């Protein structure tokens, strides 16, 4: 079923905004963060206006309501990615914290000097730096699956690296620069055959197409609420219950304990073991509303819409002189990074901004990938369910203006 983009746009107040007088916003930066529909904002407002309280330890009505709302979202998230149980859903701040959590708990207790972790050249800094920090501390070796000129992972290299018996393989489901959607299920299967666990960075996947962690058989899976219509300050770590159960706690404090003496404590059961202190309660509620909104439209429909829109954009952009798109055409999500002749990406973004079009310019937190391609920065347009063909046309128009200006 096609999306009614006009209707959808009207659900997002910010999309009615003008950037300067008479210049309406075209938002093409959803890979950085998504906009929020009014229902998500309302859910949080309503929480604060009606049910706000600290959770878990309270007997009074507000505390019971807040706890219920907070925990119901866990079930919703579990259902959304088809986890077996809500115990497998850990609330974090963002994808970045989810990955750090695994590195600092599972990694610290299960890895030893000389152990190998396999990553890829297309990773976001969030899936590089936590492992670099761990590697430096524990003297591990990091190995990297290379990226082909087409922007795909080199599976031959991947298989060779698996022969070295890595303990963990961690990679992104979809590249936030190339748009490449990696063959995650196949790669996880290969990793498991080689005896490695798998951590998947789902920051760009969960918002855009259906993800089934059990079908993928992922051991850990991370994503952020703010990229999927939800609030800032909220993220998810999925982990298989057996793995999470065996991991030590991450941070210490209230709620993650069963019992505390002066010099020792007994950690709480899952999922609370990993959630120390007063959590982001309103933000959980916001994510719940975001998931409802996404599910009402249907993740399959959203994926199809973005796929068609991206094909259209790809087509249109390919016709522009001196414009080079990074990454292969097939199997791509709605992210297009490009170079435009001699014009620096910052200038491209700025000229587009003057016409109301918001794209991102820079290294998109993937410096090594840019280094590999020999450019410090690219311009990046990214799409979501609220983008229309007209938005793409305005992008193309804007790019042509920039080209002319520098022509």
């Amino acid at each position: 079923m096609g999306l009614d983009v006009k209707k959808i746009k009207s659900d997002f107040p910010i999309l009615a905004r003008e950037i300067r007088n008479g210049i309406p916003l075209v938002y093409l930066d959803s890979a950085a963060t998504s906009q929020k529909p009014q229902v998500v904002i309302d859910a949080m407002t309503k929480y604060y206006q009606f049910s706000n309280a600290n959770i878990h330890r309270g007997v009074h009505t507000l505390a019971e309501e807040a706890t219920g709302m907070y925990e119901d979202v866990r079930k919703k998230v579990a259902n959304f990615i088809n986890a077996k149980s809500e115990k497998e859903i850990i609330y974090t701040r963002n994808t970045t914290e989810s990955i750090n959590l695994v590195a600092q708990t599972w990694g610290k207790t299960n890895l030893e000097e000389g152990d190998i972790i396999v990553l890829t050249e297309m990773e976001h800094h969030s899936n590089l730096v936590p492992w670099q920090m761990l590697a430096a501390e524990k003297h591990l070796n990091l190995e990297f699956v290379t990226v082909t000129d087409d922007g795909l992972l080199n599976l031959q290299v991947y298989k060779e690296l698996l022969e070295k018996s890595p303990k963990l393989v961690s990679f992104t489901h979809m590249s936030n620069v190339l748009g490449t959607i990696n063959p995650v299920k196949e790669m996880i299967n290969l990793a498991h055959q080689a005896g490695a666990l798998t951590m998947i960075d789902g920051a760009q996947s969960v918002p855009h197409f259906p993800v089934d962690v059990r079908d993928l058989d992922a051991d850990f899976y991370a994503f952020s609420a703010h990229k999927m219509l939800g609030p800032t300050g909220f993220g998810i770590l999925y982990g298989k219950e057996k793995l999470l159960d065996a991991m030590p706690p991450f941070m210490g404090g209230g709620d993650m304990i069963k019992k505390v003496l002066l010099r020792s404590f007994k950690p709480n059961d899952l999922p609370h073991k990993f959630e120390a202190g007063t959590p982001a309660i309103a933000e959980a509620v916001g994510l719940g509303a975001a998931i409802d909104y996404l599910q009402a439209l249907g993740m399959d429909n959203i994926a199809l819409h973005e796929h068609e829109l991206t094909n259209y954009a790809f087509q249109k952009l390919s016709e522009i002189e001196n414009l080079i798109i990074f990454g292969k055409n097939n199997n791509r999500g709605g992210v297009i990074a490009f170079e435009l002749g001699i014009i620096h990406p910052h200038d491209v973004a700025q000229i587009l901004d003057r016409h109301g079009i918001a794209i991102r310019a820079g290294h998109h937190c993937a410096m090594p990938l840019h280094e590999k391609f020999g450019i410090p920065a690219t311009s990046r347009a990214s799409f979501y369910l609220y983008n229309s063909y007209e938005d793409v046309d305005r992008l193309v128009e804007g790019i042509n203006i920039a080209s002319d200006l520098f022509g």
Partner: protein
Amino acid sequence: MDDFYRELIIDRYKNPIYKGELDPHNFSYEDENPLCGDHIRIDLNIDKNNLITNAAFSGHGCAISQASADLLLETIIGKNIDEVKAISKDTILELLGIELGPVRLKCALLSLKVLKAGIYGIGEIEEDLADL
């Protein structure tokens, strides 16, 4: 009189019938509610036909948890183990005769949880306990 705190509950809290420890006993199990630190221990004597001949509980807790423990033990004396296994959340709520939110529900069900955990053997059949 508050309709929530029925006379029965406060009466059982203040004057429990089955509070104490059994000496001797041939079954004993204890656990606590991590949310509030309430602690309950249940002692039973079970005869060779698996019949519960005597019961007592000790520990501390709120009126809901103490009264429900007292009412629960009253119910199980004379029953056999299989009958005890069949006791559900609803049985307890009927005994108490009130409606409870999720937090207080944990208080009400603590004694049943302790009893069943003990009877099943620690962790033997976690499924049946999962939603207590």
